[in-house]
């Protein structure tokens, strides 16, 4: 069955001021209607200020990182899109014509990227509006309907969010939310648009439900009509929306109060040259440059700050060791402590020091992980921490002494091992570890044991 899925994704841009006025954009903790002015509340006679430069340049950068062609030396009109809704203070939304077109990500074609202003926040149940969010710049990314399954849709959204995060120009939504409108058509049937999706998971579930719903209709011999539906998160279903809410004719006109955008090639070149490397390209480069496995590199590039940390680390520590640590122990600590890579309290230098200690055998990898966990709680010189935690390994002579002691005290176990019982070795290692108060590397203990037992009289 031919499935065609496409997305329209909206993401807020990280600017200090709104798109067409100078109001602050940090509205999450602000009391309702405290970050507003005549412009973003649609007061009579209020006219927009010239568009926010940072927002325009962010849209260009996002277009470039998605492999698009930026529209240069041609007027890009900012249009008025008219419709009636309580969260839209002027009765129209200002939205630009495409700024960049014809890109692709993970095999899905990107049709276009453009700018628009966020409406306010309307609570339909309580019947109230807060305009703090009104006027914040949004980038809208429209894909072609190249996606063919809910799984592919989920992976695509993950990749897209990661790529956008890389630019550092988008404002992360609370709780990792994603604003996406999805469209889907089956076997050339009517195109159904689904609104009110706020998460990657929601998109996945909405698509699964919608495919089931449409398949059922088609099996019954009914037609799937073209319509707009709303996704209800609680029930994980889609329901029809009243057409009047989403009028077809928006009566687009160029906004007479705003000059069209005009982007020149030097601006595009400047942005391109200072852009961060997109994650999929960085992944390939890490594999090549540091000779690490693909699946490890993928984990490293999952966050830009993590990849930055890795590259700095790999300059001073064995890259493969570093990579293994990043993929396993470091990722584990971050997940356990619910930290983003850019939020870690320790410095990269401290991490490098720790890894050097592991590399040099000063601490065991297990000890290293414990130190890392401490570092993530209260950063300090790792050597200090190692001392505090009593992790400094015994000197070889001390260890040999303990190995000899334990061998002498456990002749039965030694005999068992000699006769082929491998578990006996583990038992002996355990005994030694305890006596050494963990200040030894179990691999080193094994090695010494095997050596000693081979030459012992038992």
């Amino acid at each position, binding site marked *: 069955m031919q499935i065609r899925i496409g997305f329209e994704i909206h993401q807020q841009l990280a600017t200090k001021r709104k798109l067409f006025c100078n109001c602050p954009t940090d509205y999450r903790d602000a009391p309702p209607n405290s970050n507003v002015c*005549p412009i973003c509340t649609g007061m*009579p006679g*209020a006219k927009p200020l010239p568009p926010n430069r940072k927002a325009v340049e962010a849209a260009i950068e996002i277009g470039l990182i998605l492999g698009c062609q930026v529209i240069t030396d041609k007027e890009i009109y900012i249009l008025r899109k008219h419709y009636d809704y*309580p969260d839209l203070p*002027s009765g129209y939304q200002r939205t630009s014509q495409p700024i960049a077109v014809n890109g692709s990500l993970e095999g899905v074609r990107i049709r276009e990227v453009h700018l628009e202003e966020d409406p306010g926040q309307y609570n339909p149940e309580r019947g109230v509006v807060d305009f703090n969010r009104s006027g914040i710049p949004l980038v809208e990314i429209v894909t072609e309907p190249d996606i063919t399954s809910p799984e592919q849709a989920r992976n695509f959204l993950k990749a897209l969010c990661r790529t956008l995060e890389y630019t550092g120009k988008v404002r992360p939504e609370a709780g990792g939310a994603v604003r996406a409108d999805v469209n889907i058509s089956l076997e050339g049937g009517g195109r159904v648009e689904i609104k009110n999706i706020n998460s990657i998971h929601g998109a996945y579930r909405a698509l699964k439900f919608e495919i089931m719903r449409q398949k059922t209709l088609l099996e019954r011999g009914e037609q799937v009509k073209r319509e707009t539906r709303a996704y209800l998160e609680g029930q994980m279903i889609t329901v029809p929306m009243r057409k009047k809410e989403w009028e077809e004719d928006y009566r687009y*006109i160029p906004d007479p*109060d705003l000059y069209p955008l005009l982007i020149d090639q030097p601006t595009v070149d400047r942005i391109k040259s200072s852009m961060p490397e997109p994650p999929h390209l960085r992944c390939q480069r890490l594999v090549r440059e540091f000779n690490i496995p693909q699946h490890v590199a993928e984990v490293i590039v999952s966050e830009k700050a993590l990849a930055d940390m890795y590259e700095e680390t790999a300059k001073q520590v064995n890259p493969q060791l570093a990579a293994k640590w990043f993929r396993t122990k470091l990722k584990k600590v971050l997940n356990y402590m619910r930290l983003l890579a850019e939020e870690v309290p320790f410095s990269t230098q401290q991490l490098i020091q720790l890894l050097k200690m592991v590399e040099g055998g000063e601490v065991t990898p297990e000890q290293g992980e414990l130190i890392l966990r401490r570092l993530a709680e209260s950063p300090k010189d790792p050597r200090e921490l190692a001392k505090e935690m009593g992790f400094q390994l015994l000197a070889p002579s001390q260890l040999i002494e303990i190995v000899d002691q334990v061998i002498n005290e456990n002749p039965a176990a030694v005999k068992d091992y000699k006769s082929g019982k491998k578990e006996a070795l583990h038992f002996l290692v355990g005994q030694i570890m305890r006596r050494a108060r963990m200040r030894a590397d179990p691999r080193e203990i094994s090695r010494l044991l095997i050596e000693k037992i081979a030459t012992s009289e038992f």
Partner: protein
Amino acid sequence: MEGTLEKLKAIKRGEIPVVEHVQQQLERVKKRDRWLNAFIQLNPSVLREAEGIQNKLKRGEKVGRLCGLTVGIKSNINVRGLRVTCASKTLENYVSPFDAEVIKRLRAEDAIIIGMQNMDEFACGSSGETSAFGPTQNPKAPGRIPGGSSSGGAASVADGLCDLSLGTDTGGSIRNPCSHCGVVGLKPTYGLVPRQGLIDLGMSLDQIGPIAPDVEGAALLMEVIAGRSPNECVMLGVERLELLKQLNDDVKGMSIGISRKFEELTHPEIMQVIDKGIETLRDLGCKIVEVELPNLEKALSAYYLIVSVEFFSATRKFDGRRYGKRIEEVCGEEVLRRILRGAYISKKEYKGKYYQRALQVRTLIRKELIAALSKVDVIVGPTVPKLPHNLGEKLTVSEMYSYDYLTVPVNLAGICAGVVPAGETQGIPVGLQVIGKPLSEQQVLKIMRAFERCRSG
């Protein structure tokens, strides 16, 4: 009667105490305005503001360029704390939370805002009869319409109720009432005066401009309000204007364009006054040149199509949720007419045929006017094609629209034009329209000043 600049000098020198000056005008307003109906709301703090400026003068402090002069404000310009109603039930209780940019400039120059003036509802009219607060009278031609939509502004200046007024002109709304009431007005080049805080009729056509009893007053007010503002987007790059300096210069040798088209479209009694005016200019040493304006009358319908689309868009915010009432529920006929027309011709299926085609006609009109103006310094002619009708007389829609034939081409082209009293017929004032190239306010005002000086003998 003393001119605006003399009055200003007298105030600055302390010969006319500011408070006394304002009190006198308030007295006159009290006496006359019940009949004239030029004001919707008087500024309750006007005497306090006058005192403040008077004290400034007493203390020898530096005072602004409009020191103590009273300015009436058309009711579609936001003045913080006053009711900015657009003469409509939609906004009848809308107390503005912010000052328009031009109001900030007036305050910075110590003007005294005397009150909010009557107008045609949402500026949709040319007669002064469509206000939700009742029609305005014509003090110079009682029983006749004062013109519109800046009816209150022109009538109050004509009747001495305030020193100056701020009006707005989208299709002739300053020039039309100035002609009917016998006062001076100017529609600036589009983009010269900031529109931040002006409640829209047609965004690509609206301009705020001065209404004054004399040309010097208009020039002074124009100097204060004109110039680039960083607080909006679509503006010309001109920082400030200098208009008073060369205002009284000799106009000998300037070339004046006239067009036969004006005669074709205009009532002969009006043309008689205009022709005499042109002779006056000839006597002053100006060269009279004929110019071609073959498509002039096509501007009218193109104008009404464009302004309707823009007005429809502009009024979507009047949904009654954050302030006022939903406009379609309470507005007058002409306002509703423009909203419905705008909604219709901006639909996907009609846009090309009407709206976009009208924008093509706009290109034609602009090209034609600019071409004609390249041959002369200014073009001169009548302001209105027919005499103002009697208040309350029933006109068809197209009869009403036809007042605008000679004024809308200027708005479509975005150029500037002023009106100066030229005489009377049947006791009704007739204004001479002086049209200039973009940013040629200096030329236009110079001609108007020379003409005015000549007429006053």
